[in-house]
C-alpha cells in the first residue's frame, strides 16, 4: 500500500527544504546583481559587502543617458524573435523526421555549427555578407543567430518526439494520414513542454549572443548585449551601471520564461493519449 500520510508530509517538507536551499544558492548572486544596480559604483566593490544601503536610480539614469537602450532593445528583440522563430520553424519538422526515421545525421549536422568556436565564423561570414551588402541588416543577424537556435530546438525536441509511442503514428498511418499531418495534428500537441523549453532556450541563447553581432551589425542594428560591454574598460568601469544594464537585459528572457511556464507544467502530456 502507498505510504502513510505522515510519510507524504515528511517528503513534502523535505522537498520544500531542498527547494529553499536551491533557491538561495541559485538566486543569491542574481539578487546581488539586481541590488547592486541600485548602488553607486564604488559601493558595489566595497568591503565588507553592504546589505543595507540607500538605493539610487543614478545608474539607470546614466544608462539611458549614454546608451540608446530602447533602440538597441528593439534590435535585439527583432533579431532574437526572428532567429528563435526560424529555429522553431526549421527545427520542429527536422526533429520530428529524425525521431521517426531514427536517422541522426541531420541533427548532428545542425549541431556542427555549435562544435566549432564561434570565432571561426567571424571572418568568413563578414566576407560573405559583405559581398551581398548585408552587413548591418537584420537578416544577416537573424540568419547567423538561427545557426545557434536551430540545433537547440532540434535536440531538445528529439527526446520529446522519441517519447511518443510508435503505435500512435501507426494508427494514424492506417487512417491514411500524411506524415506532415501526423506532425501537425498529432505529434505537435503532445510535445508542448518540449516546445516551451526549446522556445525559452532559443530565445535566451540568441538574446545573449554578442559575437556575431560584433561583425555583422553596424551602429544602427547593434544589439543590447553589446551595450553591457561598454561599462567595463580601463578608465570607464562603472560597476553600478553594468549591473543596471545586466538587470534590464535579463528581464525579457525572464518574462518570456514566466509566460511560457504554463506549457511546462500543464497537463499537455502523454497522459492525454492514454488508451
Amino acid at each position, binding site marked *: 500500500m502507498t505510504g502513510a500520510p505522515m510519510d507524504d508530509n515528511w517528503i513534502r517538507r523535505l522537498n520544500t527544504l531542498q527547494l529553499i536551499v536551491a533557491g538561495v544558492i541559485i538566486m543569491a548572486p542574481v539578487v546581488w546583481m539586481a541590488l547592486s544596480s541600485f548602488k*553607486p*559604483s*564604488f*559601493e558595489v*566593490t*566595497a*568591503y565588507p559587502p553592504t546589505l543595507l544601503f540607500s538605493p539610487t536610480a543614478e545608474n539607470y539614469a546614466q544608462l539611458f543617458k549614454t546608451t540608446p537602450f530602447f533602440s538597441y532593445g528593439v534590435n535585439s528583440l527583432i533579431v532574437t524573435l526572428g532567429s528563435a522563430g526560424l529555429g522553431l520553424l526549421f527545427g520542429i519538422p527536422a526533429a520530428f523526421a529524425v525521431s521517426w526515421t531514427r536517422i541522426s545525421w541531420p541533427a548532428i549536422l545542425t549541431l556542427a555549427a555549435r562544435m566549432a568556436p564561434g570565432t571561426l565564423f*567571424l*571572418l568568413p561570414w*563578414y*566576407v560573405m555578407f*559583405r559581398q551581398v551588402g548585408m*552587413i548591418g541588416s537584420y537578416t544577416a543577424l537573424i540568419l547567423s543567430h538561427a545557426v545557434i537556435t536551430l540545433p537547440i530546438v532540434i535536440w531538445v525536441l528529439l527526446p520529446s518526439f522519441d517519447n511518443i509511442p510508435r503505435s500512435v503514428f501507426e494508427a494514424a498511418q492506417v487512417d491514411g494520414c500524411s506524415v506532415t499531418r501526423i506532425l501537425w495534428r498529432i505529434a505537435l500537441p503532445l510535445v508542448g513542454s518540449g516546445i516551451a523549453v526549446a522556445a525559452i532556450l532559443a530565445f535566451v541563447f540568441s538574446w545573449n549572443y*554578442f559575437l556575431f553581432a*560584433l*561583425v555583422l551589425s*553596424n*551602429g544602427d542594428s547593434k544589439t543590447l548585449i*553589446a551595450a553591457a*560591454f*561598454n561599462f*567595463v*574598460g*580601463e*578608465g*570607464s*568601469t562603472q560597476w553600478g551601471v553594468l549591473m543596471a544594464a545586466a538587470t534590464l537585459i535579463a528581464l525579457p528572457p525572464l518574462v518570456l520564461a514566466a509566460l511560457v511556464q504554463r506549457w511546462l507544467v500543464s497537463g499537455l502530456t502523454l497522459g492525454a493519449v492514454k488508451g
Partner: protein
Amino acid sequence: MRVRTSIAISLARAGFAVIAASVVASAASAAEFDWKKFQGKTVTFLANNNPVSQALLTHKADFEKLTGITLKVDGYQEQQMRQRLVTVMNAHSDEVDVFMTLPSREGQQFAAAGWYAELASMTKGEVAADYDGAGLSQALVKAGTFDGKLTSMPMNLEGPILYYRTDIFKKCGLEPPATIADVEAAAKKLKACDSGVTPFVSRGLKPALPYTFSNMLHNIGGSYIANGKSNLCSPQGKEALETYSRLLRDYGPPGVVNYSFYQISALYRSGRAAMAFESSNELRTVMEGGERLKDTALIAFPAGKAGQVPTAIGWGMAVSAYSKQPDAAWYFVQWATSPAVQKMMAVQGIAPPRSSVASDPEYRKWIDEEPVRQQWQAALDVLAAKGSSEVGYPIVANPESREFIGQAVQDLILNQKPVDQACADADKGLDALIAQK
C-alpha cells in the same frame, strides 16, 4: 638607460623636425585650406569606447558643422573593438575610414600588416593653419612611426603612475618614496604598521602586467632587447623581475596574479591599499565617491638606477589603408587632434599630448580646482618629458611578447621557478619571436 633615452629623444627631435618643417611649410599655404572641401561625405569612425573617445565625441556636432561631413560612429569596448577591427581589416574592407589605435601594443603589428594609411604626406598636404603638428608630443609621434611611416596622430597621454595614501604614510612615519628601494622599504614598514591595508598593489594578470612592469624595468636600466637578443636575463632584467614580483608577492593582496585595473582601482578606492601602481586613466574611477580625494598623492614611479623612465603611451587616430576616402578621413583625424579640440578634451579629464594645451590657462584652472588633479598633471608632465613608449618588445609580435614577460613575472610571484630559470625560459621563447620575419 638615461643616455639611450636622451639619444632617442634627440633622434626623434631631429627626425621629426623634418615633419614639423613640412607642416609649417604647408601652413604657409593654408590660405587654400578649406574645411568644407569634403562636404556631404560620410566618414566612418571605429571607436574604442573609452573616456578619450567619449570626450572627443561630445564635440561631434562641432566637426559636422565645421566640415559638412557626416560622421558615423561605431563604438565598442576595447577588446571587442579590436576583434571587429581585425576582422574588417583582414577582409580588406573599406567599411572603416578612421579608427583608434594603440601604437605601443599593436602599432608595429598593424603596420607590418599594411593596415595604416601613411599620414606624413597628409600632414604636408591638406592641413589647417593652426594644426601645429610640431606641437604634438614628439615622443608619441615617434611611437606611432614604424619603418619611417607615420601611422597615427596622438590623441592623449597616459601611463602608469603611483597612487599612494598620504594619511597612511604619515601615520607610519614614512616620507614619499623617491626611489624604488624607498617603495620597498615603505611597503615593509606598512606591513608592520597597518595590517588592515595592503601595502602595494599593481598588475599581476599575465597579459596586463607588462604595462606596469616595463616602467620598472626601464627605471632600473634594463632593456628588452640587446644585440638582437632577448635581454631579460641581464642583471638589470633579473633585478626588475625580482623586485616587481617580490613587491607583489610579499606586499601585494592575495590573488594578485589575477589583478588588473578593475581590482586595483576597487581595492585602492575602498581604502584597502596604501600604494597602487596603475594607469593614470583610472583617476576618475579611483576618485569615485570622493573618499580618496583628499588623502591621495600621485607621482611618476620612483627612480631606479637609471632614473625615471616612465611608460608614456597614448591612443592614436589612424586612417585605414583600405578606406576609399582617406582625404576626408584625414580631415576628421586632424580636427580630432588639433589644439582646439584637445583643449576641450583636456578640461574633460583627458591628458593632452600637447605641452601647449597642458600649459593653457583654462586647463590649468581646471587642474587647480583639486590638489589631486594638480598632482596628476605633475606626474603626467614627468611622463611627457621623460617617457618611453616601450611596453613589451619593440617587435611586430609585441602582443605575443607580453605573454612571455607576464609568464616570467607570474612564475616568480607564484614561486614556481627560480629567477634564472624564469628569465631563461622567457628569453628562449622571445628569441624565437624576435627572429620571426
